[in-house]
């Protein structure tokens, strides 16, 4: 039993329980001293959640080094994990190795992804036919309509968390390897950034047993002020989760700007590094605004601070501006890394340079910048000033330009290539097609007049699921298969991979077109039930079945990856014949990454240029005649 305490996660969880209880006790004591009633659930869970999170971070060991530094024991220049630790200790504990942290992010991300997906399957079951089938219990309870509302609200927010974790997994694992660095700029901060997602993710999930959340992932007041208790840990959990994004983004930016290998100018980096830089440029700044809006929403609820309460002089629309100022750029955070993966994978399987590499690299930054200017297209019907609508329509349409550059580049990369179609390539191609559908379904929402129709209907749901599947889900799966051999030293099962792809691609195509159609035919968002007279019942059934087909494909992938990690065929170090730096290393990658520092002597995507080299270890001085 004592043995369990050698795992940071176990210590952290126990500490979190103690910290939460201590926080609640503190609130009760203060309330008694002030002459108030001893128990106020909102206040108790807020302070409990905060102290519980701090306690978790202490328990897991993420603050130990900094505490030591603060006590005057200086820290060394270099850090690495305790070599005496077992693999389980390393992965369940506080690691400073970006590869371990990348896997930690990935595993936790996939767990939340599956959880959020399950919530979706549950409410899709309900929506398969008109009338209530599952949520027939007491209306204000989890067994009734409030439960349904909680399902889609948590599906949304837990998915957001899952996506942020999975892209952090990719960026953390790959960026140092791709730039020839030994680790990230701030390894301890990196470990902290991962571990804080655990208590904050748990707080988010706690919203479910605490009574649920019925506002949708956006958490608009005034509804959030009168929502069930789950709203408190929902707001708080997301707030704390944001710390990870901000600190992680700072780490990525400094790593890319300061730790590139010799000779690696900005335009000699693999394009995924550019994608990560653009993503981090959004995350480090915009995330503060969802933090602020959720903080203010929480304060309005817990302390009656009337920011969004018109009776107190507040402004309901202020929340929406603050919230969407983050949440729109956030969607570019979700898709930029995946689009970077597509740009990495296509040249390798077409044996052809990435067409217009510089333009593709800069288009990621272009999307990031323009993405800051479009947020109020989520608010065309909100009652905000009418004169704001057209300018935001214009800026929204402009985002299509840098996005288009990517599509044209991908198409040109494939043209006249020599294509092969292993599973990662299938997912990359599928991603492009689905992201295309997602992107093209944007203009009906961008144009104000048509948005007055589509807003808050399933058409929007179809649009953003297509962009998210095309920009994140499919590319992330391409990445999982593509880098699986590098990560584990083994190959996944190719046949199962192909089955997964076709199930997911066909399933999702049905889902997205179905959602868009039922939305245009009158299906509102966030409703547990719909009128059979709308004539969308078949469409809804199709979407539900499609969701289950996708789930089947994903289950296949999970099985494939877990099984192959232990029993898969041993993989070559560079099974894809990629020029990228990480594929010049053995699989799995050694702890210290590169034996010798590398230098860049060529361009990253010069497939077809005979005898050209991209990176090589910095050799000793050349012998004459070399």
């Amino acid at each position, binding site marked *: 039993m004592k043995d369990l305490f050698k795992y940071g996660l176990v210590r952290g969880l126990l500490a979190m329980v103690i910290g939460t209880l201590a926080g609640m006790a503190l609130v009760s004591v203060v309330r008694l001293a002030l002459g108030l009633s001893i128990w106020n659930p909102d206040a108790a869970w807020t302070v409990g959640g905060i102290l519980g999170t701090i306690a978790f971070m202490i328990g897991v060991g993420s603050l130990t080094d900094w505490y030591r530094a603060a006590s005057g024991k200086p820290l060394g220049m270099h850090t690495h994990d305790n070599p005496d630790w077992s693999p389980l200790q390393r992965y369940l504990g506080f690691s400073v190795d970006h590869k371990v942290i990348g896997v930690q992010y990935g595993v936790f991300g996939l767990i939340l992804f599956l959880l959020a997906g399950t919530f979706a399957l549950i409410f899709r079951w309900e929506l398969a036919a008109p009338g209530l089938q599952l949520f027939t219990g007491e209306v204000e309870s989890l067994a009734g309509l409030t439960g349904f509302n909680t399902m889609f609200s948590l599906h949304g927010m837990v998915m957001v968390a899952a996506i942020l974790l999975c892209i952090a997994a990719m960026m953390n694992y790959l960026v140092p390897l791709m730039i020839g660095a030994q680790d990230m700029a701030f390894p301890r901060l990196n470990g902290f950034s991962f571990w804080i997602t655990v208590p904050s993710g748990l707080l988010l999930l706690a919203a479910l047993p605490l009574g649920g959340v019925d506002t949708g992932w956006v958490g*608009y007041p005034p509804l959030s002020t009168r929502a069930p208790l789950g709203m408190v840990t929902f707001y708080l959990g997301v707030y704390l989760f944001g710390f990870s994004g901000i600190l992680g983004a700072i780490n990525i930016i400094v790593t890319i700007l300061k730790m590139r290998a010799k000779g690696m100018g900005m335009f000699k980096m693999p394009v995924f590094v550019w994608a990560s830089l653009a993503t981090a440029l959004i995350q480090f700044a915009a995330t503060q605004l969802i933090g602020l809006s959720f903080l203010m929403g929480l304060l309005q609820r817990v302390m009656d601070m009337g920011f969004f309460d018109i009776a107190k002089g507040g402004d*309901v629309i202020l929340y929406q501006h603050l919230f969407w100022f983050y949440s729109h750029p956030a969607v570019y955070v979700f898709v930029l890394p995946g689009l970077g993966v597509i740009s990495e994978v296509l040249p390798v399987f077409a044996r052809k340079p990435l067409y217009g590499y510089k333009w593709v690299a800069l288009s990621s930054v272009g999307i990031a910048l323009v993405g800051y200017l479009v947020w109020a297209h989520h608010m065309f019907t909100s009652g905000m000033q009418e004169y704001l*609508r057209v300018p935001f329509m214009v800026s929204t349409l402009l985002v299509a330009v840098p996005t288009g550059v990517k599509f044209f580049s991908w198409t040109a990369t494939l043209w006249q290539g020599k294509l092969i179609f292993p599973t990662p390539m299938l997912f990359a191609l599928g991603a492009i097609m689905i992201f295309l559908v997602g992107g093209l379904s944007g203009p009906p929402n961008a144009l104000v007049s048509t948005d007055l129709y589509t807003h808050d209907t399933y058409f929007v749901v179809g649009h953003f699921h297509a962009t998210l599947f095309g920009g994140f889900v499919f590319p992330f799966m391409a990445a999982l298969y593509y880098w699986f051999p590098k990560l584990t030293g083994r190959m996944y099962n190719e046949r199962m991979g192909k089955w997964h792809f076709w199930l997911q691609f066909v399933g999702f195509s049905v889902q997205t077109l179905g959602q868009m159609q039922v939305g245009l035919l009158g299906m509102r968002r966030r409703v547990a039930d719909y009128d059979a007279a709308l004539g969308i019942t078949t469409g809804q059934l199709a979407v539900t079945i499609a969701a289950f087909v996708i789930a089947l494909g994903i289950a296949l992938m999970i099985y494939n990856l877990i099984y192959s990690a232990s029993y898969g065929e041993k993989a070559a170090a560079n099974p894809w014949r990629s020029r990228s730096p990480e594929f010049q290393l053995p699989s799995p990658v050694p702890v210290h990454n590169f034996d010798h520092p590398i230098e860049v002597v060529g361009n990253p995507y010069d497939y077809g240029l005979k005898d050209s080299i991209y990176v090589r270890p910095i050799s000793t001085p050349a012998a004459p005649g070399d």
Partner: protein
Amino acid sequence: MSDTQSVNRRVLIASSHPLFARGLTRLLQERQAGDVAVLGVVSSTAEAFQAIQQLQPDLVIVDYDDETLNREDFLAHFMESSGKIRFVLLSLKEGGDQAMVYDRRNIAASQIDEWLSEWTEASPEESQKHTSYAAPDVRSGKMKHWIGAIFLVLLIAAGGIVGLRNARLLTQPASLQAIPIDQAFSVLWIAIASLFALITGLMLYSVIAFRRKKGDESDAVHIEGNNKLEVTWTILPLLTVIGFAVYGSLNLSEVVLPDPQAMEVRVVGQQWSWRFEYPEQGITSNELVLPVDRQVLLRMESQDVIHSFWVPEFRVKQDLLPGRETQLRITPNRTGDFVLGCAEICGSQHAYMTAPVHVLSSADFEQWVFDQTDLPDDPVARGEIWANQYGCLACHSLDGTRLVGPSWQGLYGSETVFADGASRTADAEYLRESILDPNAQIVEGFLPGLMPQNFNEILSDTQIDDIIAFIESLK
């Protein structure tokens, strides 16, 4: 040539024309002595490739005019594998009175000196640097790919446009505002189908036509990009989106056109019901009844959280905010029955926050107004009307079901227990207090702060008496 290893650049000349070969050799030796060494001369393609393998020259100068050399082979080599080995085609015939040198960018013979010295001075690393070349279009068979791809694009575009036109995609329009909106959708469908076809067609064609042949482990052609093309496919989409922005602006202005003669209807939304007040006619209804072909100005407000007004057939949508009026103008242009649904999540019963909508002819509308001002004499019947109109039944059931608030069935005269333990008989006085000051006493098991607190402003004493009578009638 002896000792060719120590010089900077090693050249192979491919030409079966002795004069060409020897003349060029002499020129190179004279002009670039010490920097350039001519390794040899080959006169057939086979010889050439053998020599290339063996001698590994840095540069191969091919006689472009020599018909015995297979130029296609050299061109293929030239485009695919110009790493350490550079190929240059030299033609004395093509340029009229100038020699032409094809080095994947065309340079005139007068520039060859400059090019050669540039090339000899470059370091080995630099010589591997690449500028984006525009390969001369000498590949045969390329045309067939373009034709095939364009055909596929057009096929998909046609299919897409036909499909979108014929699919059941929008509810039947019922307002003037729907006309520009539906037109915008039509334009968008065409644009979407075309762009989808463009990318998908090219991609699918590549997937079919550019597969790697079995056993071919070599890379594809080394094409890095083309700045002019990039600029084109940035500017053209930019112009397209600007075009759409202008179109969208004009379209919107058509949708929001105000009619100063519009009829006013106040829309009150609350969790989870709608109420419609007609100030001109002095009536209240919980169904939205409108005369056809007349613009209605909806002046809307929420009693609690954000709601949203949407009748799909009318197309336009607008949120209702608490404490602030928002407006929406609709001109129904056909009679019919529709459903208004709340389009902003507003709590547990959001899905069921609907109201019937009827668009009537002018005459029928006038009749309806007349009928509405005629209230029943029986207070119980009137009470039932008020209970519907003012949203009581969204939270209080008539059949014992527990909703947000206690059921009214059997409520009158029953013993009610409160959250603080006290109890009271639910008589008329208690019910009146519950309506006017809902938070004074909360029934055990229910939450405070949910019932609207402004009924003292909205309901008259008579209306309250009627409601109490109605509650009393429910056993």
